[in-house]
């Protein structure tokens, strides 16, 4: 799947959808990444990249050092326990950063991808609200 084509489709879709509207901005680098900004949630963008076999959607939660250190273990446990129930997304860490992510087949339709982004955005916001007590 071509990321530029996907970007175009997402832009069109983002304009069409009046409940869930979003903007798409490409980020250039070794791997092409699309930054999808959902309206009214500009602080929590969803980053989308395409690898050989899957499309990855990642949303940043917080850095390890934003968490009260004595609570880290209990928060990790809580996150692991929540993981299965969370629709379409999972918690993970990239280096020092906690993230929520969802992986899709490269054969997914544009509707599948938009649905994934929508879910991921909702899950991110809800997870942050749920984990407020662990923040410094």
């Amino acid at each position, binding site marked *: 799947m071509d990321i530029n084509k996907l970007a175009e489709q997402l832009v069109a879709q983002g304009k069409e959808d009046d409940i869930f509207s979003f903007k798409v901005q490409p980020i250039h*680098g070794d791997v092409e990444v699309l930054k999808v900004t959902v309206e009214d949630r500009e602080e929590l963008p969803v*980053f989308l990249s395409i690898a050989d076999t899957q499309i990855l959607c*990642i949303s940043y939660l917080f850095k390890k050092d934003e968490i009260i250190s004595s609570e880290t273990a209990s928060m990790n446990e809580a996150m692991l326990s929540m993981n299965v129930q969370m629709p379409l997304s999972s918690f993970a860490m990239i280096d020092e950063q906690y993230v929520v992510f969802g992986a899709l087949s490269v054969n997914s339709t544009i509707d599948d991808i938009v649905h994934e982004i929508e879910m991921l955005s909702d899950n991110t916001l809800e997870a942050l609200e749920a984990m407020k007590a662990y923040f410094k």
Partner: protein
Amino acid sequence: MGLISKIFTAFRGGAREVGEAIVDKNSIRIFEQEIADAENHMEKAKRDLTEVMAKEMEASRKIKSLNSEIEKHEGYASQALKKNDENLALEIAEKIVELTIELELQKSIQVKFAEHSIRLKAMVKKTGKSIADMKRQLVMVKTTDSVQKAASSINHNYASGSSKLLTAKESLDRIQKRQAEHEDRLKAGEALENEESGADLEAKMKAAGIGETNSSASDVLAKLKAKRS
């Protein structure tokens, strides 16, 4: 050691740049080469298997026809004996011996090819499994690589752009504040809407002479009179 174990061990060892440690260009190339080799190996094994199975079938066919030949000649020999033609019977018996020797040979050939085909089938299955496993690991290696690169692009974007990486707390506060404002606006709008439709209703009722109506001068006068008395 499987790749998951390697990654896990690297994390436990406190490697910061785990992606880089595991995903050097070489490991991807080596993996791809190994997969290509295994696939060639598998193709060859499949071709061999087809050949061996064909040979086994050929031997089975020969066994079947030899068996019926022997049976037939045994019949001939009995007939010769019945006619007391000992010499002919002996000649037929010699033919039977010849056929039996050939039958034993074909039987051993059939067994040999049958065993070979079992070995090849097991090999094809094993190779197929290991190819699937290598492909799965290659996906992991490539994904690790891709995620690392994507993360570095994202971090670079945060660092250079105007959208600096807020703490989760700040982001959450901002979004919730915006949501609250949004909600307030909605509520205000709703209230206004209600008021307007309420005012509308009052006007309609007044026109119909229902509810509170403006008191007329004669009403006021009547009230005053009532008070005085």
